């Protein structure tokens, strides 16, 4: 069977807003793996901010829209363990008791994947055509790690990037303190947690920090840059796709020329 898998790209609200290049990197990786990538333009957000704030009614309405927009595809892929986890693990619970919607939510949950695990588990990708000359460290984002079991998949693919050396940080599986609305509601605690994280990142002496969730990356990049760190920060998809031409997170060409002030 040579027909291409039709994949709906759930780009996530943060990538849409902050870092479109991650979406394009995801699309390239999916196309390299032989998928046809389609983007529903009615997509907004998976509903997590409302869900984690206790607003179930709005979450359900948002989730229903996501289901409607994405259920036509063979698979739904998101460059985020957090958003994929929301659809996979929480959508069915949201509609428990509502037979018709629960069925649709479960069907969508069953075909929704986080990007890297989709590549390795569904497309059987074992290596990527990419080069990165430098030392990277990888942070395991919580939802991807604990809800979806993503730990080895990105490391396996990173190992095939030419020139790339992985230097593991201590406690790579410990939260960075982002937690969505948590970082806004409890900024002091969030800051204390991310400070602990950046210390372990620096200890690993990397050139580049990678992770699979833009929320965590914005948080860690924001802290690293405030601390004056030289460590660059990118989404793992950018490196795997060999698309590192855009400046890293929280940096611009102007910053990179060293005129930051």
């Amino acid at each position, binding site marked *: 069977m040579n027909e291409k898998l039709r994949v709906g790209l759930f780009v996530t609200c943060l990538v*849409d807003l902050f870092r479109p290049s991650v979406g394009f990197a995801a699309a390239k990786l999916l196309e390299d793996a032989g998928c046809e990538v389609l983007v529903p333009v009615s997509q907004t957000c998976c509903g997590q901010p409302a869900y984690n704030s*206790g607003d179930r009614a709005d979450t359900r309405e948002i989730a229903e829209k996501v289901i409607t927009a994405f259920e036509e595809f063979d698979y739904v892929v998101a460059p985020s363990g957090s958003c994929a986890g929301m659809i996979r693990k929480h959508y069915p619970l949201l509609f428990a008791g509502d037979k018709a919607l629960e069925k649709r939510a479960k069907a969508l949950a069953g075909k929704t994947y986080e990007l890297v695990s989709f590549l390795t588990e569904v497309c059987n990708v074992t290596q990527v055509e990419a080069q990165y000359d430098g030392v990277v460290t990888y942070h395991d984002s*919580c939802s991807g790690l604990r809800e979806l079991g993503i730990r080895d998949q990105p490391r396996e693919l990173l190992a095939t990037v030419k020139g790339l050396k992985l230097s593991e940080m201590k406690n790579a599986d410990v939260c960075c303190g982002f937690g969505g609305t948590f970082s806004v509601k409890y900024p002091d605690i969030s800051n204390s947690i991310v400070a602990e994280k950046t210390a372990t990142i620096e200890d690993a002496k990397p050139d580049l920090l990678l992770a699979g969730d833009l929320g965590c990356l914005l948080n860690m990049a924001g802290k690293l840059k405030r601390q004056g760190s030289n460590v660059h920060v990118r989404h793992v998809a950018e490196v795997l796709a060999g698309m590192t031409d855009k400046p890293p997170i929280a940096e611009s060409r102007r910053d990179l020329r060293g005129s930051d002030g």
Partner: protein
Amino acid sequence: MVEVHSPEFKENSRKALKDKQLQRALQHVRGNFIDKRAKSIADLPEFEALRDNARDIKNHALEHLDLYLEAYEERVVAQGGHVHWARDSIEARGLVLDICRKVNAKTVTKGKSMITEEIALNEFLEKNGITPIETDLGEYIIQLRGEHPSHIIAPAVHVTKDQVAEDFKKAHTHLPPDRSMDEPENLLLEARGILREKFIAADVGITGANFLVAETGTSVIVTNEGNGDLTQTLPKVHIVMASIEKIVPTLEDMSQILRVLARSATGQEMSVYTTLSTGPKRKTDVDGPEQYHVILLDNGRSNMLGTEFQDMLRCIRCGACMNHCPVYHSVGGHAYGWVYPGPMGAVLTPQLIGVDKGGHLPNASTFCGRCEEVCPMRIPLPKMMRHWREREFERHLMPSGQRRYLQLWAWMAKRPAIYRLATNVVTTGMRILAIGRGRFKKFLMAGSWTAERDLPAPQGGTFVSQWKRQRPEQVR
């Protein structure tokens, strides 16, 4: 009830973050507990299966709680003990006082018990002319300091060695002031000597219970120091204070849970002393208490049965959730403002003191899920914290500014056309404001974020609009 400071969680945590001594003490939690737990679990291939069984045992016990409590009471009475039932802390304290008064008690020794913290027993006994003496070393230290535990199994984890030396100097004035107090060993020896006298002089001993075994009418305590054993063996009267959900059906069920308890708590295979007590001393016994009383406390627990919080009643108070919690690591236990800190406290506290007072706690979580990952009883802690947030949302307890912001966002998220327009405006606007830089040092509307972090600037233009432009044929 212990004074409630949970509504001031934000202020408390800010203070805690600036408290250098506390931050130094918290370093011990971050390393020690986590590494030891991991190692002990790696040594037991059956650990995950035991967790499943432990969960199932407690679920079964909770589904039949009334019957097991009745069976338990029957066995206690058959072996010469007394069982008292208390709906709330007022009844429980009254029962303790009655028993103490009947034997004219002056001093009461206490084993470590979180439930006596919950009902503020010490303050109550003092008011009534009875001196309670905490005998767990950590509990003793914080009693001297006039504090409450900051951790459910390591109550004095927030105190440094030097602080303990200071406290002992102040309290033990009969000892030579120039004695050596540099090593923890000296401090322990000093406390041992002082407490030994108290054990022997006490009229009543009060312990908690890790388990109540319905099959045999047995109460079980788990300790490392042996203080609980001296507390319950030497005085004439032994009072067990236990909440109703401590019931397990049989000795085997107790042993299944014991295997996950110590490993999850301290990384030991077994705590040093697991002690099963059934009734008072027998006729031919030469030591042990003459009276054995069990006080079964409800205090809101039966109301949790049949609700989305029932799973919380499986908790065995091992402390693994707080040992692995990044928020607990940052602010310590006192910031939570009541008896139970960390993730388990974030679920239990709103139930026991009201969500209007304890509402901060289930919100102060990143939902990283590490607590659920390590919970030996597989309690879905984040899920239950989310349930509390739902109740708060329903009751409009969320700050109104936050609520408006959230609802505006949700309103847009449900209207893709408006959302597209707004996000394009925002990203373009931010791009302009960034004037060629990759980040903001300050940003209006994100003031709390940028206080100690930069805010990365958007690349410019949303993904969806770019994709639409570049690949119109791949749009749905």
